[in-house]
């Protein structure tokens, strides 16, 4: 279990470095779509929400999971769609 935790922590730290490296390359013109796009990615918590809403032994867990699915899905769908809308505007005028 402890080695498990350390490997999770390793992934966490390395991913932050990847994030810093990738994000610094984004020009200020695209900072709003970057924020909303990254925001959509943070909706990945939908994974946990699905796992909770899909259990069968407890109504409480299912309900918590259900609300979490709704929230995360708003985040995911709203985030990617609105980012797409914004980015299309930049594309239009070439």
């Amino acid at each position: 279990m402890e080695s498990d935790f350390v490997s999770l922590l390793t992934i966490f730290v390395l991913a932050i470095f990847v994030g810093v490296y990738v994000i610094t390359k984004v020009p200020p013109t695209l900072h709003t779509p970057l924020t909303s796009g990254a925001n959509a990615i943070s909706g990945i918590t939908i994974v946990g929400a699905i796992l909770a809403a899909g259990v069968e032994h407890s109504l409480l867990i299912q309900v918590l999971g259900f609300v979490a699915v709704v929230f995360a899905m708003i985040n995911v769908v709203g985030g990617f769609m609105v980012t797409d809308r914004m980015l299309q505007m930049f594309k239009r005028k070439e």
Partner: protein
Amino acid sequence: MSLALINVAYLIAAVCFIFGLMQLSHPRTAVRGNRIGALGMLIAIVVTLLEKEVVTFEWIIAGMILGTIIGAVLAIRVKMTAMPQMVALLNGFGGGASLLVAGAELTKFSLIEPNPALQTTIAVAATCVIGSVTFWGSLVAYGKLEGLINERSFLIKGRHLINGALGLLALFLCYELIQHPAYTSLYWLLCVVSSVVGFLLVIAIGGADMPVVICLLNSYSGLAGAAAGFVLSNNGLIISGSLVGASGIILCMIMCKAMNRSLPNVLFGGFGAVDSGPSADDVYGGRIKATTPEEIAMLFDTARRVVIVPGYGLAVSQAQHAVRDLANLLESKGIEVEYGIHPVAGRMPGHMNILLAEASIPYEKVKEMDEVNNSFEQTDVTMVIGANDVVNPEARTNPNSPIAGMPILDVDRSKTVVVVKRSLSPGFAGIPNPLFALDNTLMYFADGKKAILDLITAVKEG
């Protein structure tokens, strides 16, 4: 599906996110990048549905349909000017979802595994705190940006003491929760306390500091996701969450640098609530020259280069399309038109850029601060539309000014400056702007959009 296969799929999803973010480095590839990110999300969702833990689907499907409808309607209907509050709201939902996930997971533990590992309960407590602060902080930010609550910083006496006490209480509850994970009510108590902290923190921050707040909350929503990943031992969540966490923090630092302020100063400073320095009468007294559209049109007759500096006022009056029409008109007369954007113009990073893009203004003409600052001396007319503090020369000249040292757009170095503004009221910093009283400055008092439309008429007639 085997566990290994599922984890490989999460890895593919995470690679999609990284690759998608990489493609956001250029407007030409950005649309594809965003879609690759969405594809990654789809992979993650489908794979999760195949996990053997997932046995019932009613709640999941109902939640996904409801969430999709709400998300899609929000995304389709939101105006470009309202993008900051939209992002704030979405941040809040992300943070809220992580908060609920950790709560559900803790409840699950209390039913089937009374003694979860220490690192798991620590992660649960962390998700609870970050998730609650993100949720309530984002809702307050949304309310301020949408105009539902007063935008100015709301400062309670002894707020540092109150926040400190609440912070200590939250820490104590975290400790208790980690010691006794079976008492799930501790989780919800911690949730309430952290919610109050999130609420109080953001209510104290004024409107123009919202770019920093939005970035920070964005970062938190990512970190909440990563923390939930630790709870579930899920690599996909951890990688994606930390990517978002990093993105928010980097933007935060860029914004702070552009205001020459530290992050703690933005978060706890209560900026804009103090007044000091010379009064408006001392600065402006008898030196303000008001102008008319006709006079500006005459200036354009001899101009070769015009720079437009947009600020939040442009967003408020929805003047971006009118500005584009004016720029087209000027260009048809052989005048070079460019745009200069301050990093903190507007209410979120890049806010002005998306408004100009909405009006089909090519991004090549939209220049960053450092680039455009080199060109003001060769500029005949600079038009400042709805911006104030970011063009205040006090930042360069007066070391005692609240904005001292803040990098600004040096519009005062151009031959003539036209400031489009409704009145002489101060900007967020609450200080008068000596730019308005300079010899080469003309004040054009009007609402942003109407001002530009009248100006277009004047140029056409002249």
